[in-house]
């Protein structure tokens, strides 16, 4: 009876441990990421500033949007030969991530090499740690650094400013947290005033002015969380202006300004590029070839939201037979994509060369829809015949008389820009004709 109970208890305990572990391990599997460390200088004078930048770049690769409404903070500490010389906190959340969104978080942790440090090789360690509810994560990265003798007597230096936007990518409705880390690279304490602004489409808006007192070698963090309301911004930057600082009784005014711009994710713009290759003469008066349909994103995937769903059709000239289905559907398109289809056409009839790829795609949260059409031209019958060593078809081809709009004639005969303003004025003159 006792053994039975123990067996049952052991089984339950094992199952409990296994299941909770299964639940939590691999949470990072939903992120495809890379962490990169950069030290500001590997040879530095005693008494000078050193900093380490840690950058996480990755992609959220789950199928559903991710929402974190709270904020958690990780701690980062810089140690020189085991002695802590600096610490900082790094925020995560609140944030919303859409499936397959790129993610960049970069933080710089500055510290002061004590002026009493002896010249020679030393070890600088950045320790990142996160502790909560018994969940304890810690990672260390060590850098050998060469400490040099001070070359000159200490001079007063202005504070150093470091920005972080977590995450760097923003879009309408998304939330990111800004951290401005202000570091005093002097051994003496300093007072300072710093103003924080947002800049949208070239216009600045003052958020706040902060008066701070920093001990030598210490930093302060200004942290604010923003939700982006508009989708029509061409830029969103956060600026910090150092209004003044006082050090050793001296006051310095209007010192400098620095900023950090968000990477605004815009709508994707898909364009189909169509071409043929692998022609085969089927020796029955027809040919077969591969039709490549390549979708590229004119906005660039790094700067755009992904396509959640795309449905498209390929409309070929009547004379061309498609061996595969004419309608296709793709989900979670996050990179340029290509479909290769087999087609078959006649060698003894003039082809109508006009084809098109048309469809719709959805993106964003809430979903937005774009309808698209990408016309393309098939190679002419004579071009295909010549490939197989046949002569061109005899007789005159009955070309469709294209409308040849004036604007098209202007664009295709254009020899390169001289003055775009003149060219636009020329284009204006065609618009009344087009929209008559």
């Amino acid at each position, binding site marked *: 009876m006792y053994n039975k109970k123990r067996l049952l208890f052991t089984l339950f305990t094992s199952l409990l441990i296994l299941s909770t572990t299964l639940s939590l391990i691999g949470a990072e599997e939903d992120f495809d990421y890379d962490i990169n460390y950069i030290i500001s200088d590997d040879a530095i004078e005693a008494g000078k500033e050193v900093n380490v930048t840690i950058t996480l770049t990755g992609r959220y690769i789950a199928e*559903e949007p991710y929402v974190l409404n709270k904020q958690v903070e990780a701690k980062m500490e810089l140690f020189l030969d085991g002695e802590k010389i600096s610490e900082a906190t790094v925020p995560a959340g609140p944030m919303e991530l859409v499936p397959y969104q790129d993610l960049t978080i970069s933080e710089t942790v500055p510290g002061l090499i004590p002026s009493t440090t002896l010249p020679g090789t030393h070890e600088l360690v950045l320790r990142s740690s996160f502790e909560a509810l018994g969940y304890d994560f810690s990672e260390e990265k060590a850098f050998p650094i060469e400490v040099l003798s001070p070359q000159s007597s200490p001079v007063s230096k202005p504070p150093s400013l470091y920005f972080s936007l977590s995450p760097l990518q923003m879009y309408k409705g998304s939330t990111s947290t800004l951290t401005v880390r202000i570091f005093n690279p002097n051994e003496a304490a300093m007072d300072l005033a710093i103003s924080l602004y947002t800049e949208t489409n070239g*216009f600045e808006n003052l958020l706040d002015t902060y008066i701070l007192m920093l001990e030598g070698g210490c930093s302060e963090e200004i942290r604010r969380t923003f939700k982006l309301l508009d*989708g029509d911004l061409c830029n969103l930057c956060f600026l910090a202006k150092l209004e003044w600082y006082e050090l050793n009784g001296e006051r310095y005014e209007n010192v400098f300004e620095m900023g950090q711009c968000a990477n605004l994710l815009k709508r994707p713009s898909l364009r189909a590029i169509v071409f043929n290759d692998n022609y085969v003469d089927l020796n029955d008066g027809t040919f077969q070839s591969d039709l490549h349909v390549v979708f590229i994103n004119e906005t660039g995937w790094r700067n755009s939201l992904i396509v959640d769903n795309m449905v498209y059709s390929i409309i070929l000239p009547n004379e061309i037979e498609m061996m595969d289905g004419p309608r296709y559907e793709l989900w979670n398109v996050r990179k340029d994509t290509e479909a290769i289809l087999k087609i078959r056409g006649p060698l003894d009839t003039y082809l109508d060369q006009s084809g098109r790829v048309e469809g719709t795609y959805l993106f964003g949260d809430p979903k937005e829809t774009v309808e698209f059409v990408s016309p*393309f031209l098939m190679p002419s019958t004579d071009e295909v015949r010549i490939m197989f060593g046949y002569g061109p078809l005899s007789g005159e081809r009955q070309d469709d008389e294209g409308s040849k709009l004036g604007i098209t004639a202007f*664009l295709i005969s254009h020899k390169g820009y001289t003055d775009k303003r003149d060219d*636009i004025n020329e284009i204006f003159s065609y618009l009344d004709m087009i929209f008559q």
Partner: protein
Amino acid sequence: MRKRKILTIIAVLMVLAVFTLGILTLVGVISKMAWASLLLGLIGKDVEVEEVANQAEYYEFQGLNIPEGQWQITESGDELIVENKSATIGIKTIEKDLQDVDEYLSSKALEISFDFSSNGMDTYSEKYMMCEVEAYIIVGESENINYMIVFWYMGGKIYTLNALYDLRAEADEVIYAISCV
């Protein structure tokens, strides 16, 4: 004795439930991010979230708002030109009475697009929203020139944005920033 049995059954059910959740997570039915979100939601703190929106001052033209200050803007009658890095964007409105707006605009989009295509230009078109109405965007690229026209119908006028550019992103920057009064 009976109480103990019930407690044992409850304990077994709880363990099985957690185990099932673990398995569902492992096979991907429950997102691991859902767990991470739950955990971080428990330990995280609430912070004040500030709203950030467009602060720009606008140049108003025929019912359109164009951010003022960072680009050169020249107005002439019913035409306006915005210059931005490598892109020049001309805005022109054409007054027109239309009965079937969709039919007219889509036929014009097809006409322009197929004219570009049949004359050897690389082209593609999109239908998207501009000023909360459907707008057509047609791109035509040849060896020497890149052109994009965006047009839509609003208040008895056809609005056209005409961009000549080296990099489409620079034209998009202006076009995205144009909004309606």
